[in-house]
């Protein structure tokens, strides 16, 4: 009967994990010992049978549902560790377009208000000495501040991206 050490060596020979010297020794054993040969053949047949015969499985979830869960988890992890190694998601092109558009809209509103105020009485100017305007965009906001007293307008545009 073959001992366990020889059994696993026969297998290692089959898997190409032996040195050339050891492989030659095992090949001699396989040629001369019927038990060793039978075992070697069984191991080889099993390996051949398994090769390329793994079951093809399909994920039960739909593409959209599966991805939505992954995306949500990625976003959650990024909120937890904002300085993480992962790439920062790039906003959709329309958001990138709307960032300057939002800023421009804010400026137009400011100019209109300033022109209106130029016709207003001093008391009205005092009441509306400064204005704050925010755009309703979720991922982009612009914040403007105007001081009539200082004759100055400041516009702050924030895309909420790092």
């Amino acid at each position: 009967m073959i001992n366990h050490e020889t059994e696993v060596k026969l297998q290692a020979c089959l898997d190409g994990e032996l040195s050339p010297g050891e492989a030659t020794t095992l090949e001699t054993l396989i040629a001369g010992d019927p038990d060793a040969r039978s075992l070697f053949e069984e191991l080889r047949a099993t390996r051949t049978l398994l090769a390329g015969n793994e079951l093809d499985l399909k994920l039960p979830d739909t593409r959209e549902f599966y991805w939505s869960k992954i995306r949500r988890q990625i976003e959650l992890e990024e909120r937890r560790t904002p300085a993480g190694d992962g790439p920062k998601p790039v906003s959709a092109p329309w958001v990138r377009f709307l960032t300057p558009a939002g800023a421009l809209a804010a400026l137009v509103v400011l100019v209109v208000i300033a022109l209106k105020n130029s016709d207003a009485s001093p008391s009205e100017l005092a009441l509306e000495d400064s204005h704050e305007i925010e755009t309703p965009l979720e991922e982009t906001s612009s914040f403007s501040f105007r001081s009539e007293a200082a004759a100055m307008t400041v516009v702050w545009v924030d895309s909420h991206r790092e």
Partner: protein
Amino acid sequence: MSRKLDYPAAEDPVLVKGAQKGDMQAFEELVARHRDKIYARAFSMMRNEEEATDLSQEAWVKAWQRLKQFQGEASFVTWMTRIVINLCLDQLRRQKRLRAESIEQLDEELGGVERQMPIVTPNPTERLERGELRQRIDKALGQLSYEHRTVLILHEFEDLEYKEIAKRMECSIGTVMSRLFYARRKMAVLLAGLKREELR
């Protein structure tokens, strides 16, 4: 001005580069393309649909976080498969710690039953369609202990060498050789048994 990427037609390396720059749509395409394979590997190791789905999702999240580390030495899908395998191994180790070690389990680890088995030559391919054969192999895999199944999957389906399997399973090369030997012997018996059953 850069041209818009045709995601479904783009090859993996192009999508990976896009994803590394933060393009989530490129990453979504990679997920859609390889999700079945990653899920299948998780399922083959865990033998549980829910766990396999959760672990495959976790693997994709980890992949996004580590995308910068992917240098393209192996294919993207190989890299992804390694991530899901590691997650499954961690999960199986946690589960094993929770389970009480039984005598039966210890016996299996040492190949108690398999040592007594007569030598058989499984060859059900003669009578089985490929799909059916795959089903039967999968059923037989499900009957192995997780140590035997894992070592078999890593060697036969992932083509990992003994040394690499030992590293991933946190055991010695000798243990890997032993587990693989008993796993193959048990598979031979299970598949030969299926053949006998079919012939009856």
